[in-house]
């Protein structure tokens, strides 16, 4: 029975995602029509090496958050494999999954809604520690205080409530909650976007320090390219549910190949009034994922779109070692 979801075919990749699909049915009643779906995540594959950080960038509605949540099985998987530490999370039974939960944690976007308003801080951080017996009962208190210290929280916050804290501190609490479970893998879902610039830097540093100290693997989901560039080792660029480009940080930033990546990079405002970027301004808006364009999903906004783009969806192909692009501009064979 165990073998149903145990897969020994892994090396130093802590997480392998294969052909992950997540469709949401649009309406339950459909008369005479084929049932339509929102393809929030459409055939995404990638893997993350132990102790590294993968950045996942894309604009709103591109499915990056759904990828994160589907990996953790917060949503059910429509199709595909999520192999974490040799186990296929997509197939694991719920009871076993709950035992596995501490190993993979998540830091959420909104520090205001991600903390239960009626629990004191110590309880928020320690609740699951108790539940999973992460540390012996006698050490519980000192362990929580140590975690709080690691995350830059004062010990006397232990009995305070979330409403007494500012956004930055709440995000620290949120990180402490994740870290207290001694996870191997942490998904950070836009943890900085609700914070002020000066606080963002503190949280980035905190996350970096924790990674150095405990060797966490991060999947860092963000729309902010500069943060992703600073934190990640590898980067995946998503557009409308599909991965359009993937590679090492250097490859993506120094040699972006997909027209979308190029446009995205050039659109970031530079903090220097004298640098005038040679900006590629994309026309139009992101199409609705309910009814995506045929062929290449980016073709409606792509300055280089040709006829073939409307007909055939490009496959993600490796051009340099580790650098994969899905675009007809490059040979698809």
């Amino acid at each position, binding site marked *: 029975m165990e073998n149903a979801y145990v897969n020994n075919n892994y090396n130093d990749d802590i997480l392998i995602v294969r052909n992950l699909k997540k469709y949401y049915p649009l309406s339950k009643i459909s008369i005479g029509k084929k049932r339509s779906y929102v393809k929030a995540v459409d055939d995404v594959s990638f893997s993350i090496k132990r102790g590294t950080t993968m950045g996942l960038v894309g604009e709103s509605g591109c499915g990056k958050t759904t990828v994160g*949540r589907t990996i*953790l099985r*917060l949503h059910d998987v429509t199709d595909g494999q999520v192999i974490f530490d040799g186990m296929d999370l997509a197939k694991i039974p719920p009871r076993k*999954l*709950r*035992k*596995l*939960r*501490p190993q*993979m*944690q*998540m830091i*959420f*976007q*909104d520090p205001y*809604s*991600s*903390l*239960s*308003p*009626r*629990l004191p801080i110590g309880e928020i951080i320690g*609740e*699951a520690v108790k*539940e*999973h017996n992460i540390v012996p009962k006698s050490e519980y208190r000192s362990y929580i205080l140590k975690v709080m210290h690691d995350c*830059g*929280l*004062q010990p006397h916050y232990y009995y305070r*409530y979330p*409403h*007494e804290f*500012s956004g930055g*501190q709440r995000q620290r609490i*949120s990180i402490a*909650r*994740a870290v207290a*479970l001694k996870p191997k893998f942490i998904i950070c879902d836009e943890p900085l976007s609700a914070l002020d610039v000066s606080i963002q830097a503190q949280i980035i540093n905190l996350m970096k320090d924790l990674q150095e100290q405990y060797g966490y693997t991060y999947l860092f989901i963000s729309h902010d390219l500069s943060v992703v560039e600073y934190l990640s080792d590898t980067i995946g660029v998503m557009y409308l549910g599909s991965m359009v480009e993937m590679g090492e940080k250097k490859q993506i930033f120094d040699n972006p190949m997909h027209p979308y990546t190029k446009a995205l990079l050039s659109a970031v405002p530079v903090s220097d009034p004298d640098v005038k970027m040679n900006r590629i301004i994309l026309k139009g808006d992101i199409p609705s994922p309910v009814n995506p364009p045929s062929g290449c999903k980016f073709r409606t906004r792509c300055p280089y779109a040709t006829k073939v783009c409307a007909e055939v969806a490009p496959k993600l192909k490796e051009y340099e070692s580790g650098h994969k692009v899905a675009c007809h501009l490059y040979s698809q064979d």
Partner: protein
Amino acid sequence: MIEKEKAAQQTTNSSNQEVKDGYEQHFKVISPGRMVAKRFFRSKLSIAGLYMIVFVFLFSFVGPLIVDATWGYEELEVFKVERIADMVSTADFKGPDGKTYTYYDKSQTLVYFKAPPSAEHWLGTDTSGFDILTRLMYGGRISLTISFIVIFLETIIGVILGGLAGYFGKWVDQLIMRIVDIFACLPGLPVLLVLSATISSIESIPAEHRIYYMMAFLTLMGWTGVARIVRGQILMLREQEYMLAAETTGISPMHKIFRHLVPNTMPQLIVSATLGLGGVILYESTLSYLGLGVPFPRAAWGSMIALADPSKGQEILANYPNMWVPAGVLIVVTVLGFSFIGDGLRDAFDPRMKR
């Protein structure tokens, strides 16, 4: 002003020495509980409501003690207050001419009941010679006790069923919510009437116990509202990121429901319970009025109004307002008071509802 700044400075300085990384904040806040209280007391209506309810409570629970201490009256004590009353009797007879004549006879008699307000009996006595003031107090006791028990039971049932429906969703939700629908579409008053009538006709149930059955029915009728509120709240809260966070940390469902979800529905529950109290009192009075609630010798506001029932003659309605007006006023005061408090609490818990 200067003092405030000084104090602030001191806290900043001390926290700076203490906390090297300077995460300490240097200003004071109001605790959420106090904030709610503050918003509640800011509204004049809620204060009025509070006064009304406090008055009704003192009247019903402390009042009898005072009455007992001063006069030594009891609820079922009969007072025969002698007074001379005018009595008019009429009779019809057919005259020899075949027409109908009415014959009036005005005389004076000695009566013991329906005494007018006096120093001994502030509101007079009723048709059975009971002291009305005393009975109002005891009637209030029953009304308030019933409404609190009913609301308490309702809330418990509603929280459990609504919580299950909201948390587990799918068929559990379908099942529970359909039951709720069925209960909610029953016409409350007619069903209660039928059931009360049925119960009073069953001889094996003693009259004093009828009230418990009535409470059970009121509970059965009322829990659906609470269940709906709780379910709606939980559906909303379930989408909050902290519930996702609880899911990722892998804590058990029971923990999730009772430590994360239910405490967060408390404000809505308190509000709906407060507003519900008035409703139950109204129901109880209606039933008592119809003679289906608290059985006769015991006092209830509804049955006290029923004395003025016009179908039994206009006499009391027209000539003895002291028998039924006070009970009516008390019902109005209580129901209004609970609604004012409920509204005030709702605004206080959720300031967005106002403005």
